[in-house]
């Protein structure tokens, strides 16, 4: 009896291992638009990296800056997203590239920004990327619920990023954060080149 069982198991395993073309959708989670939005922010480097850059920048400046970014960025993102949903504007990759260069450069330089400057940066980043998200969401007919998911993810990412950096006191640890900023700025510079070359 053992041999037939092994044969059946082997054939079953072979069939399971023989995949057909899966028609999966990258955008949807199957759990609804709120979770789609949550995953979008976490899995889209165009949004994820600048958010983390701002979190690092605010974290380097301390608790007050971190808290300010934590609340200003999501609110501005939501506002920008609602405007994008209403306006259906175009999406230019140059904005993304510029946010990489600006925020990454400031992190790399460990720029001693005032609280007002951090607030302004958070507001601009939120309005700009939120607008891009809103415009993109408007195109496939997705709604404000997905935008809420994105905003929730942005809030979480800033909270995690800033709270990770704020307690860092060792020089080498802060240097690692600055090196990360230089990488982000470098990626942004290359993106500017790509965007200009492709005429986007």
């Amino acid at each position: 009896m053992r041999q037939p069982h092994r044969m059946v198991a082997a054939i079953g395993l072979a069939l399971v291992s023989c995949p057909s073309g899966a028609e999966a959708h990258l955008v949807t989670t199957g759990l609804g638009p709120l979770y789609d939005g949550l995953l979008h922010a976490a899995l889209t480097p165009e949004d994820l990296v600048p958010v983390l850059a701002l979190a690092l920048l605010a974290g380097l400046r301390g608790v007050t800056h971190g808290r300010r970014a934590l609340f200003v960025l999501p609110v501005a993102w939501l506002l920008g997203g609602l405007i994008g949903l209403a306006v259906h504007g175009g999406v230019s990759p140059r904005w993304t590239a510029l946010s990489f260069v600006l925020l990454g450069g400031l992190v790399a330089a460990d720029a001693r920004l005032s609280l007002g400057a951090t607030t302004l940066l958070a507001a601009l980043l939120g309005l700009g990327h939120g607008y891009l998200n809103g415009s993109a969401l408007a195109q496939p007919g997705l709604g404000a619920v997905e935008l809420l998911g994105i905003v929730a993810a942005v809030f979480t990412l800033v909270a995690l990023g800033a709270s990770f950096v704020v307690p860092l006191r060792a020089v080498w640890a802060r240097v690692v954060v600055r090196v990360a900023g230089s990488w982000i700025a470098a990626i942004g510079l290359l993106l500017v080149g790509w965007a200009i070359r492709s005429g986007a």
Partner: protein
Amino acid sequence: MRRAPALVLLAVLVLVAPAHAHVEQGQAAGFFNGLEHPLSGLDHVLAMIAVGLWGAQLGAPALWLLPVTFPMVMALGGMAGLLGVPLPGVEIGIAASAILLGLAVMSALRAPLGAAVALVGLFGIFHGHAHGTELPAGQSALLYSMGFVMATGCLHGVGIAVGLIHRWTWGQGLLRAAGAVVALAGVFFMWRAIA
């Protein structure tokens, strides 16, 4: 009889069709191609590691200032390459970077911070320009750039990590020997660039 299931399994596994589970094509390829690009040329690899080694020899603040400076200046060069801005003698500049950085490590050169940053930045332009002109079309620009910059930064990290042996006497000798190897390789690259 015992071999039959294994043979069936092997045959099916060999004959499997690829699963097209992702709608967006080429995204992962963009990241991994970018990650691989700086590692594909020994001239780039040696120069990047030499930057880290020299930074470790010089100590703080050069230890972190060089790896912070290089990616950004290199990206500026890459942007120029992407835009088609001509830069004469790119291969010669890359070979010269290996020679001079190798010599700096070999002699444990205590250059002023500004001079060290300027030298590394200058070479970064050449390396970046070469990468920029070689970037393949049809990739995800962002993911490719991320992989590319991360690989370059990791090469610096390797150089710095290895360079930490500088604190021991035997390590200092070993670092100087490594610098000599980089400089010799640079001479070979220069010969190849000119010939």
